[in-house]
């Protein structure tokens, strides 16, 4: 079992416009891959494809050197995805939000670990307040607590730095590098400049073009 996410000649067409074509990826353990590109270049779409949400792409995906179709369940149980929206229920407390996520991840229910995770993202003392009463940055932190709560090797994070203050950004950046150093892998889109380091790789998505094929 090894952490390896590959894509061969990946292409995505949205309403007759190619978002990207002929994309080859080989993502391994210990890497932080930053997907870059202008607005509308398909960053989010790429992350959704690579996290198994979108099926209408061309090309092939491999997880652990098996085709994604066969390895899907295995892939999903090693994946932690965070989208644009944090996925935090405003009417539930941070603790209750994490309870649901813990159950969905198939983890044993463990209140102490939930407290610890919230503590870790700087939400100590806010555990029992409805998330709707927290600030946008704090709600994002509730979602980020999943990175601590649910140990998964592959992180796919779409704009995780949104609405977070400077200290939080630094802490999150540390967390990403730490995860890569421990043999995990991070796939991320962000407008925030990540500190350059050995683990960091970039994928640049440009614009599509007129299709000349059949």
């Amino acid at each position: 079992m090894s952490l390896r996410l590959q894509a061969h000649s990946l292409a995505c067409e949205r309403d007759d416009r190619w978002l990207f074509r002929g994309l080859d990826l080989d993502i391994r353990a210990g890497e932080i891959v930053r997907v870059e590109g202008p607005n509308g270049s398909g960053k989010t779409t790429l992350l959704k494809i690579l996290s198994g949400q979108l099926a209408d792409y061309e090309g092939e995906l491999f997880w652990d050197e098996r085709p994604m179709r066969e390895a899907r369940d295995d892939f999903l149980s090693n994946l932690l995805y965070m989208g644009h929206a944090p996925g935090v229920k405003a009417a539930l407390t941070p603790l209750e939000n994490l309870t649901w996520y813990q159950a969905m991840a198939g983890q044993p229910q463990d209140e102490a670990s939930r407290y610890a995770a919230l503590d870790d993202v700087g939400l100590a003392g806010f555990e029992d307040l409805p998330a709707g009463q927290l600030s946008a940055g704090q709600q994002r932190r509730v979602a980020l607590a999943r990175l601590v709560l649910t140990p998964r090797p592959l992180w796919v994070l779409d704009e995780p730095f949104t609405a977070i203050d400077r200290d939080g950004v630094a802490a999150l950046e540390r967390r990403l590098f730490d995860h890569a150093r421990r043999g995990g892998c991070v796939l991320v889109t962000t407008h925030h400049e990540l500190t350059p380091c050995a683990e960091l790789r970039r994928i640049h998505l440009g614009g599509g073009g007129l299709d000349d094929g059949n």
Partner: protein
Amino acid sequence: MTGTEGSVSKEVPVVFHGEPGGGLAVAFWATLKRDLVLLLRRRSEVMNPLVFFAIVITLFPIGISPDPQLLTAIAPGLLWVAALLAALLSLDSLFRADYDDGSLEQLLLTPQPLAVLALAKVAVHWLLTGLPLALMAPLLGVMLALPAGSYGVLAVSLALGSASLSLIGAIGAALTVGLSRGGVLLSLLVLPLYIPVLIFGAGAVQAAIFGDGVMAHLAILGALLALALILAPLAIAASLRISING
């Protein structure tokens, strides 16, 4: 802000997970419980369909006639149609909140089958809409001069039928969740599919009034529910995947 933030032990290597074992039941109950808690915290959303049901039933004697004989004749159909519309009212919000706050994506990305988790959400809709409507219907039946002896059948037929309605309606809700103004479209998609349930549900109450056998109707309602239970979750899951593609 605490000083401990971001302090992760660097020795522990990342753990890989094998194929998911059980956990489906846990995820199902967790989703069921979460949605129940969510709805019970916004109690007005649970109350709205019930109030709507009562108001619509009040409108008919005013609009048609207070004559008990006439009301008896139309009561079964009236109660069923009003309950059906009331259940439809809350359908639009079934997946909408999850779609907006991003938890729908997370639901799609669990290793658990999406159809089963969607079933948990539909079950909550029935528990907090269909079932209360069924329990409330006899009360409104009294106001429509429904003959004694048909109250039990009314409640049972509504309880059975509204489960099918929730399942079928959830398909429409899943198809329209990505659309900004899906509400009216949802009724257009779903109402024609409700007709068989309406026919046998209202038929059961009518049969009870005439003193005919009721079991046949209820059996068919049960059969429709069984069919919906098998097929609808698959359609809901497929529709949710389409909607999330945006």
